């Protein structure tokens, strides 16, 4: 009996994995939506409404899209519109829908070495950071936030990669880890507002730049295509997409607050209304 115990244990592990397979979907999503607490708030409502459990794998947008493109997921909820449309165009997913938005902000140390606090032009602020050679911590991980940051550098006419390792530091990690690093070395960081508000280790860091229309941050949802990925749970995924775009799902997103602040703003197209 004792000799057989490890084998039984392994069998139990495998059986457990198989039995639990039915009523759940894998949601490939981003660290911002998970770390901000949004999923902990809305997914129980989705489950109460449909009986389906949504299991979240929270990684950078780039990795989430690559995982879904390998068929390792049923739904994609990320924030890089171009990449999402390429994902759909390549046949990995059905239609892409707008779900909600929030915005990015540049946070920095109270001392503000680049003198950008209160600026509204994000690209000009980045140019000022580069001029001052003030330390800037980048995600450097091909995430949606990283892509948005690179678009801003391009708008500022600066190639930050040329300064990699000096004042421009690529952490290659998630939003929270990059914020921890940035706070630790007194660096400026481009962050999504939701992660920033829910972040618990701000120390002296504060928002320096916000309100630039280029800091708009749109989230989209795509169900993984069953035609392309036969293992995808298309019917359950469809119900998730329908729910999050429904009045109920949109209201759930709108009602999520941290410290009284709304973190995400639903903006799904209403049925029958063309946007």
């Amino acid at each position, binding site marked *: 009996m004792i000799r057989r115990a*490890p084998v039984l*244990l392994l069998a139990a592990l495998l059986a457990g994995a198989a039995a639990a397979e039915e009523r759940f979907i894998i949601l490939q999503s981003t660290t911002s939506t998970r770390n901000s607490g949004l999923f902990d708030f809305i997914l129980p409502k989705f489950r109460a409404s449909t009986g389906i459990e949504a299991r*979240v794998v929270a990684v950078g947008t780039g990795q989430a899209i690559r995982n879904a493109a*390998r068929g*390792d997921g049923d739904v994609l909820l990320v924030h890089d519109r171009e990449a999402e449309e390429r994902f759909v165009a390549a046949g990995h997913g059905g239609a892409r829908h707008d779900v909600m938005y929030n915005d990015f902000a540049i946070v920095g140390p109270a001392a503000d070495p680049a003198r950008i606090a209160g600026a509204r032009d994000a690209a000009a602020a980045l140019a000022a950071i580069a001029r001052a050679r003030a330390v800037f911590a980048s995600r450097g991980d091909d995430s949606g936030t990283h892509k948005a940051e690179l678009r801003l550098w391009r708008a500022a006419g600066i190639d930050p990669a040329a300064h990699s390792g000096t004042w421009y530091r690529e952490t290659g990690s998630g939003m*929270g880890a990059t914020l*921890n690093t940035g706070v630790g070395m007194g660096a400026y960081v481009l962050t999504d507002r939701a992660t920033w508000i829910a972040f*618990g280790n*701000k120390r002296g860091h504060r928002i320096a730049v916000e309100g630039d229309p280029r800091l708009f941050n749109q989230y989209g949802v795509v169900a993984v295509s069953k035609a392309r990925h036969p293992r995808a749970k298309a019917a359950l995924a469809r119900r998730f997409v329908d729910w999050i775009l429904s009045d109920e799902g949109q209201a759930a997103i709108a009602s999520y607050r941290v410290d009284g602040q709304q973190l995400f703003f639903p903006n799904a197209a209403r049925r029958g209304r063309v946007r």
Partner: protein
Amino acid sequence: MSPVVHMMLFQCINFGKEILQEMDGFWQALGRAVGLIVGGDAELIGIVGLSLRVSLGAVAVACLIGLPLGAAVGAFRFPGRAAASVVLNALMGLPPVVVGLVVYLMLSAAGPFGVLGLLYTPAAMTIAQTILVAPIVAALTRQVVEDLDREYAEQFASLGVGPLRRLTALLWDARYALLTVALAGFGRAVAEVGAVMIVGGNIAHATRTMTTAIALETSKGNLELALALGVVLVAIAVAVTGAAMTLRASAARLAYA
């Protein structure tokens, strides 16, 4: 008192206060973490339970593979034996992230074992940790068995003991040392975060372990809570090791009584 000394003293006191405040936060978080465990918080207990289930499962499977393999390399003379020892020792240093990545590619829907549907399940995590732990068990077993075999070689020769009998006798007589080997493997498994993060996905209520929960709380900036969870993890490792050592001590007493 000169103004300069006064300033310095003032700063020291302020600095001390800051540290005390930080410590305060930590003790509060630790109190909360322990309170959650003692109070039977379903979420934290689930996380602790999954960590133990995955890591103990991995150690069990790794022992099934590593003990006979290590013992065979340690006890038998065959061509390429030195190379096998080097490989086993080198594999002890397998980077968890690389193992996680390889297991992910194997189990991914687009991979060769995708049909099993094991990705993002505790079974996938157990597989990854087994790959990390098996070389440790095998390499350390080889050393233990080789040393013991040298001691027993004459007896084995004079009694004309067959190879299988020799292996089992060596493993049995080295059982107390091998318990420590298994514990070393458990330590590696339960503390590892890179592999379980990739193949498990750190999914709440499904594949979140102590280490991935600590990584998550750190990334949320909840440093005190992360540290408190770390202390809980260390306490669990101490408890498991303590239980194994107690078992070993009482078994030894029985054997020699």
